[in-house]
């Protein structure tokens, strides 16, 4: 009587198959989850940059309203913006000639452009996001500076 020595084989195959399928499923799950997180992060960052940009533009226009009154000597307006958005720092590029603010996140591929309207000349500059100050310079320009 010949005895086939294959009793342990099915266990090993079963083990390999189980481990392989589990690894496949888990990898898929992790990739999908990671993708969702990244996607959500970018989306949240873009929305936040838009909101922050709109707030800064509104304050810039408020400062302009004050600056354009007769014989204005001083305008200084503090704008309290978040230092980080969705865990990422960001920069604000003020473009006076095109009357736009360009907000760009450091670690996420997210950029937002916000327009403003001002009668007073606005100095072009780039600042880090956070607490900012809008001031009327001696040259009668509005400048956005770090507070």
């Amino acid at each position: 009587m010949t005895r086939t020595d294959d009793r342990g084989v099915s266990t090993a195959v079963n083990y390999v198959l189980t481990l392989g399928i589990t690894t496949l499923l888990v990898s898929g799950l992790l990739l999908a989850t990671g993708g969702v997180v990244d996607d959500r992060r970018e989306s949240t960052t873009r929305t936040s940059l838009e909101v922050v940009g709109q707030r800064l533009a509104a304050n810039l226009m408020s400062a302009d309203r004050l600056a354009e009154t007769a014989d204005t000597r001083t305008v200084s307006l503090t704008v309290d913006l978040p230092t980080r958005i969705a865990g990422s720092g960001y920069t604000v590029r003020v473009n006076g000639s095109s009357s736009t603010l360009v907000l760009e996140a450091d670690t996420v591929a997210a950029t937002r452009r916000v327009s403003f309207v001002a009668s007073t000349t606005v100095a072009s500059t780039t600042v880090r996001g956070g607490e900012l100050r809008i001031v009327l310079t001696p040259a009668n320009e509005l400048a956005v500076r770090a507070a």
Partner: protein
Amino acid sequence: MADLSGDDAGRGQLLLVTGFAIAVAIVALVLLLNTAIYTENLATRSVDTGESDALAYRDAVERSLWPTVSGVNGGDDVTRTERVRNASARVDRVAELNARRHLLEGTAATITNRTYHDGTRLTQTDANRTVTPAVGSNVDWPMATNVDDVRAAELNVTGGLYSTTNPAEAFSLAVRNDTGDEWRVHVYDDSGAAVDVTYPNGTTTGVCSGQFSGPPVMNLSAGTINGSTCSPLAFEEHLMPPYDTVSVRYGNRSTATYEMTVNTTVPPSDTDFENSPSATAPYQVPVVYSMHADVVYESAELTYRARIYAGPEADE
């Protein structure tokens, strides 16, 4: 529960790592949700930084300052120091009243850096007196020089007019500006009181004759004669400021009372006007002509400072 030590140890560790990774992903999503909620919150917050309040404060102060300060110019027997002290007290009051509403919101609103501009009111009240200096017999004389501005000029001719058909021989009062242009009003008797105006430098003539009856009472700032409009009389409409000289020619050919306020302190001659009120001679009284001040509005977020003018007309 996964077996981490038996035959299924590998699979159990895999599930544990997976669970851990998913937990991290969930935490990340929760943090992103928090960011999203914060963003929503930020988006719905007011962006009012108080600029409307600052402008409202400035506007309120600008509107109320001169009506309040000009009240110190009443009365004749007051020194310049007293006028300025009274004006300062009134400015304090204006600042305090207008700041009260803002103080309740933790905002400081003040009026600082005040500059009072000295003026002089020139007056003659004796209706039987000719338009000549207090001392001396000059008939052609400058009432005021370097005046910069003139306001509330009234000339009430009471009689003694020179009979002529040539205005150049008559009593006249002239205002000359810094560029040398001149506006002049002649008052004479040409079969009745006649009032002619020439400007600038005699190239244009305006005639008020026939528009009034009785002795002419002229408001040279408003351009009226006996209450009726005669626009050539309004010298400010025909002569560009700043002004330089107010002068009289043939002051002996009319009797008149007059009053005008000039934006200067120095009379051409110490003897032209008495330094205290007189019932028989022309006299000068110090007044506050106008003022400049800084309106300052300071809140936690906003600092606004602007120079404002308070005077009877717009700043020039």
